């Protein structure tokens, strides 16, 4: 039994789709948007890793390593920015985030 390319692309597409859906569904909650963004990163990581195994080239695995690190950095940096906003306004409401000044 062979794992075909369409299967790989379908799984990664569904992951990205779930991430986008999560962003749209929870657009009033910044923390849930952060979780949904991680799903998109997971989809791209899956795509790189499977492509790497498919073409026997380790470059994709290297890039998936970069993506894993980027996911962690993105989460921590976003949380720090949210904390900055929370200190100023005592709540997290994305509708008012454009009022945040640097």
């Amino acid at each position, binding site marked *: *039994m062979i794992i075909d390319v369409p299967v790989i692309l379908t799984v990664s597409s569904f992951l990205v789709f779930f991430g986008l859906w999560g962003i749209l569904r929870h657009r009033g909650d910044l923390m849930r948007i952060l979780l949904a963004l991680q799903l998109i990163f*997971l989809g791209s990581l899956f795509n790189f890793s499977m492509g790497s*195994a498919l073409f026997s080239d*380790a470059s994709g695995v290297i890039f998936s390593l970069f993506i894993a690190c980027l996911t962690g950095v993105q989460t921590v940096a976003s949380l*720090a920015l949210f904390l900055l906003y929370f200190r100023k306004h005592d709540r997290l409401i994305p509708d008012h985030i454009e009022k945040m000044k640097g």
Partner: protein
Amino acid sequence: MYAVEFYIFAFLVLISAFLSVMVKHILYAAFCQIQAVVAMAGILAGLNAKFVGFALLSVTATSLLVFLVFSLIVFDFHQAHAKLPEKASRSSLIFFILLGVQTIYMFFKPQWSIRKPAPDFSLPELGNILYADYGLCVVIFAALVLSSMVGIAALLVRKTDKNGEKP
């Protein structure tokens, strides 16, 4: 049959991602996210890229732990005390059993193949490629990450006046 195992792990990833979007409580959403990441690490381990799998697991575990602390304690204290469903303990037990089974399986399972035997993505091989072919990428990425962390830390430092009081 190797591909069957891939399909099981991919199914687990997709179901967990779907549930992570669908569930209302953020604690359960984070749990589902952990499940998705563990299943993804299983796929990576099957592709003979165990190091990347463990790196993904450790990075995600740390970031989700920080995420939970912030979301339940700092930002939304009331949601931490919100009443969880009565079946929470049962579903949590199933969740942890599933995670344990996957983790044990990852340790004892050899690689599976896509079209031919999976190439060697072991740590020495990856390190060789990483620092020989992608050395500049590593340096740029590290500089970016470091500068973003320093920038965030500088932003978060509370300014105080001479008396030590916040403005």
